[in-house]
């Protein structure tokens, strides 16, 4: 079982290189969120390296160091299987989700691993009612450079909600 990578917080020189890195990360995160909001979930695995960790996990489990997560993927194949299940098998009522991101911040750069912390808010709108605030939390990410781009070595969506209302259909 792959252990979650502990987020690092270490001084990062706040220079023009960091500004452009944060800009690149912001662009990436918004692209990922947009692909989910646009129902293009097939693109999702492409943002991860093969040997990745992706979890949507409660703050309760995360804080206690408990391994179980609402969505638990170790390795890109499990991320791909989430997409297959969603498209091929899962029975759910269609709705619209929308991601709102804020506070994207590089907290450490360590041996090529870029540790990034940010906030997310996801709204959910059923087809016959108003949108509700569905999930709120923090991404704890570790990015690595692959070719010209950045990809996730780890993406943890640690949610603050005590409950998930109804069901969690889509990756966060």
């Amino acid at each position: 079982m792959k252990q979650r990578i502990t987020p690092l917080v270490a001084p990062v020189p706040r220079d023009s290189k960091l500004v452009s890195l944060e800009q690149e990360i912001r662009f990436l995160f918004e692209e990922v969120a947009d692909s989910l909001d646009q129902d293009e979930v097939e693109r999702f695995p492409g943002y991860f390296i093969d040997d990745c960790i992706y979890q949507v996990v409660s703050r309760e489990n995360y804080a206690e160091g408990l391994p179980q997560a609402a969505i638990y993927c170790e390795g890109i194949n499990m991320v791909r299987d989430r997409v297959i299940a969603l498209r091929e098998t899962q029975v759910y009522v269609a709705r619209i989700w929308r991601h709102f991101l804020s506070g994207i911040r590089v907290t450490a750069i360590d041996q090529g691993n870029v540790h990034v912390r940010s906030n997310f808010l996801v709204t959910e709108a059923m087809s016959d009612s108003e949108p509700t605030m569905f999930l709120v939390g923090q991404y704890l990410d570790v990015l690595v450079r692959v070719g010209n781009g950045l990809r996730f070595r780890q993406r943890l969506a640690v949610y603050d909600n005590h409950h998930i209302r109804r069901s969690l259909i889509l990756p966060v």
Partner: protein
Amino acid sequence: MEQAMAEEVTARAAARHWPDEGWSRIPYWVYTDEALYQRELDTFFYGPTWNYVALECEVMERGSYKRSWIGERQVVVVRGNDDAIHVWENRCAHRGARVCWKNKGREDSFTCPYHQWNYALDGSLQGVPLKRGVLKKGGMPADFDNTQHGLRPLSVHVEGGSIWASFSGSPIPFDEYCGEEVLACMRRQFPGKKLRLLGYSRQLIPSNWKLYFENLKDPYHATLLHSFLITFGLWRADTQSESIPCDEGHSVMVSRNVGKKKTDAAAEIARFKEALELHDADTVTPRPEFDDGKVIAITHFPSVVIHQQANTFGMRHVIPKGTGSFELAWTFFGYEDDDEAMTRLRVRHANLYGPAGFVAMEDGEVLSESQLGVHHYGHHNAVVEMGGRETERQDHMVTEVLIRAFYKYYRRALGL
């Protein structure tokens, strides 16, 4: 004429008259009636029954505690100085404020933040600040007796690492309440080995709490709705299985993990996806664990469904929140002596369950839609005749016998 008949049906429903067909019908008012809900709480949750509250592995050390629920009442589960488990209402004996403000933790004693009444781990009152007043003024009456003002303790039973409590001082004996069949299945999964906590998931499902028990008394739906179970042979109608109704509203469903295979029966099931292949087959491939080869789900009424599926174990604690909503608190666990590979499989297979589970996600959806469907249709009934109209155990899963047996019990318990 039609109008008169419709009025008659409405009047009988309004008078909470059970349909003449008996337990093969479920009137939809059972999911929405507020007065009935209160009677359910009093009878099933606050009566001489046993409710699941926690696992021992969540409160390992002396003074460690966990908040839990029985019906709509919050309780605290604490390991005492004598190593015994105590369960008390989280309600100060003084003014009713919650004494314990955190979901989990460890304390030497509990002090109500409001006026600092201090309680021992077992809930007994140890100290009242300013009890004798200040400068000979104020204070409690001389005859105020601490022993009469403790936190309300509950009866406690520990079964193989699972903790159960009752508001009654003289509950039905635990073994008797479970019955032989349920107890045997519990002891198979909880043989006394130490447990290891793997995590929690919490859902708020906008449906009546009983619909959840019915879902787990309905093997018929699982063979049709859940592609993952069907396709990967985790739960299929064409395997050797049993549907066993038990006393006190409990039941047991038994099946076997048979792997992915195509049979004539499977071909009839629309959601059998022969072409479906996963990139990571470990998610649906269990390691053999029980000698009997069985997969067992126990519905332990009224508080918990205990599952064993592939290599995932879970307590699904049902916490009602009014007629139209309940919390489903999942506690995933394994055994303390599991090897690393088994723990990995348990955590992977938990992807089947919880709010985003390949299987359970679909239950959250259909239960929510069921509540929306029955709302304002109290004069209509569900029809549960699959597998006949009787309530005896059956050796297959194409049946609603467990739901019928449950409503037979429910009507008797509530005098409906």
